[in-house]
């Protein structure tokens, strides 16, 4: 498998060099319409990889198409993926790539992940779907005890690096306990796994392709609220966004705001608002890779701004925000002008009718910014 992966890397590397060019697509959502149109035009003119408007689920679909077309060993499997999946991320793939490569599995998460590990350990690129992140726990043992340790425990003789587990996560407005969870912290405590998420169609495709081709097992969390709601220009062809790197999606001077997934949308809106109304300048950092995560980019930003707010949907206690907070405190102790603000889900099972009050929404994040500024 290593030879297949490295062959792909060789083919893809010229495109990776172009990521700066295509990365400009990431900024679209925070640009004015006029600026966005100009940017779209410039991408169309300058890149051999033309961009089209996609939403997040079509960007995932596009990433899967590219992965399947560039790697004959790649397979996509999970519950209901054959007809397109409950979120339509695998639409039309079976017609294009056949039922040997795109197939349903029985309803059994631990089986899906265990099966994927066996595939990957035998040289196949395994792209598994767990229908909802809330249902990944039967596969917890397979992910934590098996996938994460497969390479280490064999001294590098065997590995299941070809495994990627895609799963929709996060709040969706009506999901209650079992269609809303963000389980990233459980997996971020596990050496050997990579955990990756995305904020928009462009990052979804680039990060998913990088995850599929990464030689480590990856859990790829897709914020399901964005599947249809988030749109943006996405190159039709092949590109990757580096794993392990955060991205500064909005520059600022006064407060660093760190988040990931759908929370970035909230943070960008808060940043616009506090800039306009209070002349507070916020820098927004999208972590993208949650394990390993980019301590340097976050620390540099905090050393500049002196203030940090971390926001995530998952419960606050032992959430990933706690880890980021501790690391920043170690790296930026003398730069900090205020206590680090953790704005996160409350320590509750995800509530149905009180979702709005539970989530780290605009109001709570704005209060956090003000607390940091006024300290």
């Amino acid at each position, binding site marked *: 498998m290593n030879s297949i992966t490295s062959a792909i890397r060789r083919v893809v590397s010229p495109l990776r060099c172009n990521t700066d060019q295509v990365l400009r697509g990431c900024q679209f959502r925070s640009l004015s319409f006029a600026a966005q149109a100009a940017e779209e035009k410039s991408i169309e003119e300058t890149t051999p990889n033309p961009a089209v408007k996609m939403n997040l689920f079509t960007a995932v679909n596009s990433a899967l198409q590219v992965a399947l077309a560039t790697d004959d060993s790649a397979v996509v499997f999970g519950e209901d993926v054959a007809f397109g999946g409950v979120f339509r991320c695998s639409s039309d793939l079976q017609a294009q790539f056949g039922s040997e490569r795109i197939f349903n599995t029985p309803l059994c998460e631990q*089986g899906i992940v265990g099966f994927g590990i066996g595939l990957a350990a035998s040289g196949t690129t395994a792209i598994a779907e767990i229908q909802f992140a809330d249902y990944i726990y039967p596969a917890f043992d397979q992910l934590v005890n098996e996938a994460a340790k497969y390479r280490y425990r064999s001294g590098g003789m065997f590995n299941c690096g070809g495994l990627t587990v895609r799963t929709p996560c996060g709040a969706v407005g009506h999901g209650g306990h079992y269609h809303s969870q963000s389980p990233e912290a459980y997996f971020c405590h596990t050496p050997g796994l990579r955990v990756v998420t995305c904020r928009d169609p462009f990052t979804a495709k680039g990060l998913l392709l990088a995850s599929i081709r990464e*030689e480590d097992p990856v859990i790829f969390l897709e914020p399901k609220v964005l599947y249809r709601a988030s749109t943006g220009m996405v190159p039709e062809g092949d590109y990757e966004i580096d794993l392990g790197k955060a991205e500064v999606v909005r520059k600022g001077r006064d407060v660093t705001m760190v988040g990931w997934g759908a929370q970035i949308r909230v943070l960008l809106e808060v940043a616009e608002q506090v800039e306009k109304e209070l002349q507070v300048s916020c820098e927004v950092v999208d972590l993208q890779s949650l394990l390993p995560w980019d301590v340097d980019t976050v620390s540099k930003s905090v050393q500049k701004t002196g203030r940090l707010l971390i926001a995530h949907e998952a419960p606050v206690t032992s959430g990933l925000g706690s880890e980021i907070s501790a690391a920043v405190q170690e790296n930026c102790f003398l730069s900090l002008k205020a206590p680090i603000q953790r704005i996160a889900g409350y320590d509750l099972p995800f509530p149905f009718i009180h979702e709005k009050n539970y989530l780290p929404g605009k109001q709570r994040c704005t209060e956090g910014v003000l607390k940091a500024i006024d300290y």
Partner: protein
Amino acid sequence: MLRSTRHITRHAARALVTIRYPGAATAPYTSSLNLEHAEAVPPMSCFRIMNERGKLLPGAVDYGAEVVGKEKAVDLFKCMLRLNEMDVTLLQAQRQGRIAFYMSTFGEEAAVIGSAAALRDDDTIFAQYREHGVLLYRGMNYDFFCNQCCGNVLDSAKGRQMPMHFGSNEKHFHTISSPLATQIPHAVGAAYSLKMQGSKQAVAVFFGEGAASEGDFAAAINMAAVMDLGVLFLCRNNGYAISTRSTEQYRGDGIARRAVGYGVAALRVDGNDIWATMRAVEEARKFSKENDKPALLELMTYRTSHHSTSDDSARYRSEDEMSMYAQSASPIDRLRKYLVARQWWDVGEEEEFRNEQRQQVINALTKAETAPKPGVDTMFDDVYACKPAHLVAQEKEVTERLRK
């Protein structure tokens, strides 16, 4: 409303048919109400070729003579003796504090060595933890086992796991992990991968009857059945999961009958009869590869040994029971009787052979325990394909501390 009315009208034009429910499309209808009782189904027979005295059962094919032949039969017997001697020696070594842990195969030598012998040497194996005999059969020497048990620089897994967690890429034997049954779905994935690649290799997975209670067993066997994958499920039913008897593990007719419920071909085999084991594995392998269908063999055996060096089985089973099985069930005694009856083995040679092997194991262990341990810098390798920044920093911290 209009749409739904049209919908009904269109379908109303069709004649009524006897429906077939998708979940059981071939089930006939009946007006008699009968709960099917498990007890009403007679227990699945246990396939054997030779009895406790090494004598052929009436009508049995003399597999040892007609298929295996003298030379290989003696080799197999020697392999069982070697496994036995290695187990005895390393078990003692653990008692002396020379290695941290050990698990022996006493009483189950035929199930393990017989299975290995009936598979091709390049068939992929996913093992539980009491199948190191497969590696011995495939040619691994005592050094390999002792190096792993000591976790020294020569251990291919760099001293990262407890003793008994063997693995070898070269021998197509995936590295063992302690959690039970997790390897079973891996075998199903591996079989899918090999099928896609058009490989002639088969995939066999070992597990115990206790592990079959885990969800991963159900997950894996069902997936193999639904996906038409020629996985060989080799269940060593040795009667105990540590102290838990098989009677406390399940109520049905063992594991083989369960496989049938999943739509998987199954056979119960006397796992202490090496010829029965080999013949069954050979047939099941052929069936699986030719038909792309899984098969399960329930290899009936008895764990004469303690579960591991951390266990004292006298606390949960009687001396009487243990000595009965040790005396009557021994797969080594059974094969010896078969060989001696054909004058293929001279019992006088056995002690010398055993002593030789024991000495070789002791030599290997002495070498292994004096070999250096892997450097602390290797502790941070292989977590990821490329070492990420935080591990580079942690590695630096450890190496600098040790340099002071």
